[in-house]
């Protein structure tokens, strides 16, 4: 038998074997990802309470959505959330990672302490921080009254102008440890000979961080950026417990508004519309990032 014949016979067999190995993942992906997306899109074309037969409204829900001031507020809040969450988390996480990458006594304990908030239940975090921020009886207010720092006595969660930013502060507190962990992992991957060479060449700490370490952590930055965008768009429990989207929708996010429409206002069709838009935003963000920066940060390749 010739090589060509052998290749001809093994190629379909390899294809079949490959397909069979992929099949479980494809089936699960279809059932748990593709089907809900299609279902959501179908539901978004209905005026439907989720239980009784719905009424087809075509793109009517979408027209209504883009004129809905609360939806526009959720977009604005998502924008703030992404901007004011990702950057501080990255900077503080990087700073902590740099510190805790050094041979410090008890650094494992410090790493654990900074990471603990990321593994706490968002419900617990929300309840505790609500009490911390309570201007009547909370820790922050009591500190303010004791020290004369009046700005600490303000009801940040009760003020529509500041509530979203107070919620963002809590979110940064909660997830900075996660960024720290990513940067720690990234720092381990930097070749120590590069850092040694920089030292020999006379580069100071700040120059080394700026010109060598920070650029070499490119994939970590991009991973955190993508995860941060998706995580921000998905934020639900923390906001729901902290403020329930209030006061007066000032902290409403896409998922909290979706929940209210679906389960409190019995408007599953409209809620599905919000979900579809949320999905589109997430997909467009991800694809834009891949287009701008290449897919290397996802696959681990150089580009």
């Amino acid at each position: 038998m010739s090589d060509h014949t052998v290749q001809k016979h093994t190629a379909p067999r390899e294809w079949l074997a490959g397909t069979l190995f992929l099949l479980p993942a494809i089936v699960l992906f279809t059932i748990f990802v593709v089907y809900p997306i299609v279902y959501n899109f179908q539901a978004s074309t209905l005026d439907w309470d989720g239980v009784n037969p719905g009424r087809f409204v075509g793109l009517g829900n979408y027209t209504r959505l883009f004129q809905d001031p609360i939806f526009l507020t959720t977009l604005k809040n998502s924008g703030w959330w992404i901007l004011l969450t990702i950057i501080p988390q990255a900077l503080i996480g990087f700073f902590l990672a740099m510190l805790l990458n050094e041979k410090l006594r008890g650094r494992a304990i410090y790493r654990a302490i900074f990471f603990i908030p990321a593994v706490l239940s968002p419900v617990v975090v929300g309840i505790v921080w609500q009490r911390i921020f309570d201007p009547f009886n909370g820790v922050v207010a009591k500190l303010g009254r004791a020290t004369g720092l009046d700005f600490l006595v303000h009801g940040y969660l009760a003020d529509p102008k500041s509530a979203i930013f107070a919620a963002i502060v809590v979110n940064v507190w909660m997830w900075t440890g996660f960024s720290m962990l990513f940067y720690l992992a990234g720092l381990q991957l930097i070749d120590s000979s590069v850092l040694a060479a920089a030292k020999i060449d006379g580069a100071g700490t700040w120059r080394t961080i700026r010109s060598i370490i920070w650029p070499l952590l490119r994939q970590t930055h991009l991973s955190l950026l993508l995860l941060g965008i998706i995580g921000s768009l998905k934020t639900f429990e923390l906001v729901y417990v902290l403020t329930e989207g209030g006061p007066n929708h000032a902290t409403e996010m896409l998922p909290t508004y979706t929940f209210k429409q679906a389960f409190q206002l019995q408007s599953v069709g409209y809620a599905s519309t919000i979900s579809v838009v949320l999905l589109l935003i997430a997909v467009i963000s991800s694809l834009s990032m891949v287009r701008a920066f290449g897919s290397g940060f996802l696959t681990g390749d150089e580009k």
Partner: protein
Amino acid sequence: MIAAFKQANPDAKIDATIFNYPEYLVDLQTRAASNTMPDIVGLQPGALTQQYRANLMPLQDCAEKTWGADWQKKFYPIGIEQARMGNPAGDENFYTLPLLVQTVNLWANTKIFDEKHAQIPQTWDQLKATVNQLNGGEYAPFMLPAKDSWLRNVVFLQIANNVEPGLVYKAEDGSDSWTNPKLVEAFDYWGKLFTEGIAQKGAIGLDAYPTGANQFEAGNAAMIPLGAWWIQQSDPTKTGLPPLSEGMSGYQPFLFPTIPGGAAQPQLVGGIDVSLGIAKNTKNPDLACKVLTDWIAGAGAQKLINTFNDLPAVTGLNPEKFTSDRQKQIWTTLTSDWMPQVKYSRYLKTPQMDTALGDALSGIATGELTPQAAAAKVQAEQQKVNG
């Protein structure tokens, strides 16, 4: 409750699942969509019951079979009225029957009041004076957990019914308007809770559960708006009760103070806490009927009421054991004096109006809306809902 039923019916098998409320709504919708409704389901009156009406069987035959032709007289009037809230015109079926009912009212921390020689306020001016008198302590004179929409709404409904009894419901059905000056006045008095320093600082950021309730139970507030269900804090089946909650020693319920120029007496607002329904496609309708009626007025109900969870939907059902005279006095006030007289619903008929009202009250609380603007917004939504 299951054990109590099974004692008399040993062949019965009952599986019960308890959820927290948001997860419950998700589960219920999923079950309805997948045609896997449980035999017996707990629902709130109005919109939630109506949403599942097509999945529920009418219960009046079950009720009549168990309790006789005049079975409706067993229940507090507001419970019967609310059980059919939202039924389409001409549909007189009971798709759910009330399990527990409640008033919405205020509670006073009597230890603080005694220490300060203060009187529980009966009028708005007395409320203001009492708050002034109690100011300056480590506790809030009037703790208003206004983050929760449901709580904002029940406080407003108490105010509105004290301003002009029943007017809110006329605005709801379209025979009057939310912009009626009396309702605008009610919105104004709601706003005064914040602008006149009655409610504590940051009230709109505080939730009723767990934070507000914990604070009140810990003695950090002299007054709080909640409802009859607060008596459950003295549940004798629990151990390690805070001192104030032991036998209700530190609490006294009272009605929202009267408003100047309004009704001479405070009005009673309340309704169903939770109802039970039976799935239309249950494979065990007779057993489901037996369980449902037992849990409402039988041995199972007695077990529930013994925990003081809330007030029974049926009259004459009392806990088998009281842990103090105070607890018994409060129970009697709630079940014999107040509940039979509750005329005004603590619910609006649709979730859209509940949300619109809650948003309007939040807007007033934060200063973003005037009472007039708030009333106009609510009226606009009411017109949409009424078509």
